């Protein structure tokens, strides 16, 4: 009798500051209907960008191949929800920090998220410079410089509405996870 291949489940966190595109990223790639927790935004400043915001988490699944499935957990973006960052980071083996490439005023917030996560966990991460389809999107090297990221941290072009782009970001993260863990 042929052996069933073992399915490996890896937990990946999708984080980043408010309105960076975390929920969109998971919705684009998930093969299950995404478990989201979006409510109406009430803060005027936050409503400028969009009407809804994540208050707890997003959850989606993507099967990479017969042996591997990724469980994707999206976080809320505002710092007041940092307790969820902590809860969601438990057991994750890598994470994506989404940055809105069109809003340099929010890079500081993104940096705050990176600091918080690097204090929580040592697992690898990549930065996804999102909304690169927008004409006002800033270039990757500029974003890297403004965030003051170390050379070895990948800053990737991302369009969260585009499946291929999202896939590319996740595969780069996986490569990095395998590379740093020393397994193929």
């Amino acid at each position: 009798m042929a052996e069933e291949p073992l399915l490996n489940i890896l937990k990946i966190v999708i984080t980043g500051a408010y309105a960076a595109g975390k929920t969109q990223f998971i919705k684009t790639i998930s093969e299950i209907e995404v478990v989201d927790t979006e409510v109406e935004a009430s803060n005027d400043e936050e409503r400028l960008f969009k009407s809804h915001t994540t208050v707890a988490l997003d959850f989606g699944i993507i099967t990479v191949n017969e042996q591997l499935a990724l469980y994707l957990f999206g976080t809320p973006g505002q710092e007041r929800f940092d307790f969820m960052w902590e809860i969601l980071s438990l057991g994750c083996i890598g994470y994506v920090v989404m940055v809105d490439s069109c809003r340099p005023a929010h890079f500081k917030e993104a940096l705050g998220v990176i600091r918080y996560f690097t204090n929580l966990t040592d697992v690898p991460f990549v930065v996804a410079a999102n909304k690169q389809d927008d004409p006002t999107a800033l270039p990757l090297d500029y974003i890297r410089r403004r965030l003051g990221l170390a050379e070895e941290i990948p800053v990737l072009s991302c369009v969260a509405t585009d499946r291929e782009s999202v896939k590319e970001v996740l595969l780069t993260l996986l490569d990095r996870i395998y590379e740093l863990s020393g397994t193929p």
Partner: protein
Amino acid sequence: MSIAASRTEALNAVLDSLALNLGGDVLGSAVVSVDGIVFAARFSSAVNIDRLSAIAATVLGVSRRVAKDLIMGNTRETIIQCDNGYFVIYPVNEKCLLAVNLRKGGNLGMVRLESGDAADRISGIMS
């Protein structure tokens, strides 16, 4: 007085009468937007109200998600029972919630009744 200030005052009055009607059972209470921003609160200064408000919004968000996935209608109440008391959340409307912290042994039935009335008044103030 600005509209926001008079609104806060009206909400505080609702929270005060909630505490009064429940005769010592209430340790604290707050009116919070569904995305976790405090509108009015009566808590001891030992409580970080901004943080607790965000947490209350998360808990209600998860409760509503459970109700939705089980196709059980609307969430009416979320009770967290702790060793030394309760934290109870009532949805007021699509925009805000009422969070109540009760002492151990507090009368949950009474709280449900009074919080329903308070929620109606809050809904009126917030609309």
